[in-house]
């Protein structure tokens, strides 16, 4: 007996947003990356065509990170001392984007400076043809100081600058606005605050095709179900036509998963937890898969093996079943 599959027909769609600009478009990227455009919930290909697949960004730092798991340092080896080589290694792995986080201090312990930040960003841009997301260290004053300099020195590249939060977004938005970049707007797992920050950024005059939203997620076992619900609710609102939620979502499962005890600690844990590295990679990939299923458009990852797994998963999820 044939079974009629019920289909939703949504009035709204996620906005289509392009990261990076080629030389012809005023930048220097070899290719651009477009995300968004969804007209139904993730991977429901029988309901609507999903014009763009979710993409993977590799998270790198402007210098060797102090607080990363030794497993990550061991895997990436010496490239962690050179962001340009790190970005190239990511490109070789087939990631779509590079997400560079600037540190509060330089390797020698002195404060990071706008000049240093600009040099690092330019070196990464020169080393890879992928679009770039540049995030500050997460302290309002330093973020603003570094990101304004970066924004001006890379005018027209359509970088994503972050992280805009409700307490500190004006300077970053203004810098992005004046120099042809995009912004990422982060809120702490709360639909009301997510929407409010989008409105505030829009009210500054930022074109709506230059805003990504980061709803924050938590890792597997650490509140992911709450993050999942927030993302689901934002996406449903977007499909229902709420223009202030129709932004592609960027999430950071690499950051979230690698701060869990399960990924971070190799000693003094129960033997049945099994192999440390295998467990840590499972944590990162499973967290990521859940977020893709709840509507993530950009996932920011750390471990090369997680990246390989997520690349394969995305390919499979985006394959439409042949009609029977």
């Amino acid at each position, binding site marked *: 007996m044939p079974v009629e599959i019920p289909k939703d027909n949504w009035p709204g769609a996620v906005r289509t947003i392009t990261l990076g600009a080629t030389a012809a478009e005023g930048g220097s990227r070899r290719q651009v990356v477009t995300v968004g455009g969804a007209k139904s919930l993730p991977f429901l290909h029988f309901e609507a065509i999903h014009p763009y697949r979710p993409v993977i960004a590799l998270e790198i730092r402007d210098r060797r990170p102090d607080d990363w798991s030794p497993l990550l340092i061991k895997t990436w080896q010496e490239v962690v001392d050179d962001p340009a080589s790190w970005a190239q290694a990511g490109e070789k792995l087939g990631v779509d984007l590079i997400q560079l986080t600037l540190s509060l201090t330089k390797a020698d312990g002195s404060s990071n400076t706008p000049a240093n930040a600009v040099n690092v960003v330019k070196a990464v841009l020169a080393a890879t043809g992928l679009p770039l997301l540049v995030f500050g260290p997460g302290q309002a004053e330093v973020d603003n100081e570094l990101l304004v300099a970066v924004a001006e020195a890379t005018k027209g590249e359509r970088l994503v600058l972050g992280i805009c939060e409700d307490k500190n977004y004006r300077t970053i938005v203004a810098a992005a606005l004046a120099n042809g970049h995009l912004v990422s707007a982060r809120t702490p797992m709360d639909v*009301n605050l997510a*929407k409010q920050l989008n*409105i505030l950024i829009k*009210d500054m005059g930022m074109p709506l095709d230059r805003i990504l939203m980061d709803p924050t997620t938590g890792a597997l076992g650490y509140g992911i179900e709450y993050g999942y619900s927030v993302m689901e*609710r934002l996406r449903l*609102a977007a499909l229902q036509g709420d223009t202030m939620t129709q932004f592609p979502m960027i999430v950071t499962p690499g950051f979230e998963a690698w701060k869990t005890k399960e990924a971070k600690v190799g000693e003094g844990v129960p033997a049945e937890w099994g192999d440390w590295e295998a467990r840590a990679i499972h944590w990162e990939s499973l967290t990521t898969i859940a977020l893709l299923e709840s509507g993530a458009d950009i996932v920011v990852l750390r471990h090369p093996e997680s990246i390989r797994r997520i690349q394969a998963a995305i390919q499979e999820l985006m394959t439409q079943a042949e009609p029977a």
Partner: protein
Amino acid sequence: MYIIGENIHIISPKVKEALAEKNERFFQELAVSQVEAGAQALDLNLGPRKKDWEEVFPWMVKTVEAVVDVPLCFDSTNLMGIEAGLKQVTKAQPIINSTSAEPERLEKVPLVAKKYNTRLLALTMGQSGIPVKADERVNIALETLIPRMLEIDYPIEDLILDPLVLTVSGCQEYCPELIEAVRTLQFAWDPPPAISVGLSNVSNAVPAENRGLINRVYCAMLMGAGLQMMIANPLDLELKETIRIIEERDASTAVGHLYLKIHDRIAAMEEPHIEDVDMNDPMQSAIWKTTQILLNKVIYADSYLGQEAMA
């Protein structure tokens, strides 16, 4: 609309200060101004008063009853304090605010209400908190609150059910369910218990400039569902004007016409419709957007009025 005036509330710094000073005149003026503005009862929220309840509750009753005759509504978790206040009451039948379906409170509070022949406000909240769904809140009334009243032979006519208003800023999914809970609870028993809500809770954590509008629109919607009693600010003239418009069915202004339309749609178990609204009128447009957040159709944000309207 029977309004229990909410303004004697310890959360207000002025009230807190006046209470510390035992400023009789302050409370008498606040009581009189609320009653003159139409409050038919006065809520007294003095906090738990763990140390000085024996003195403070009777003092407040004596102070307020010296100038007004309306029922006093004892809003406290301190049952001993409430009892001390009740002993001092000489005028109208007072109200205890409140019991819930949590076993300990439900065991003790109704017995005090019965002993002192008070009305009793009962929250549809159990041990596991406040359910989102209207049906579950109604079930708490039917399966726990009302049976307890029958068990101790407490008159259901004196019972006031409160299905609990929560804020649109953070608990948005509760807002439409509360409307349906108000609608259904009216048929919960024969004779029907009264139903009351704390209206201004709907705009807790909302920026001050939008609170009044959200309260007014929710009030119109709740009146459509049959609400006849609430704890609210009787000095809020715009709120009172909205109530008047609905009670007198005064459609002489465009905004009045819209409030009536919203009321009637809810009464007919329909949703307000964008065709009812002249979107070129900023006030009507703001009212429409407010209905949409209160029905959880559009996600609330502090700047929701700045977003273009959705049909």
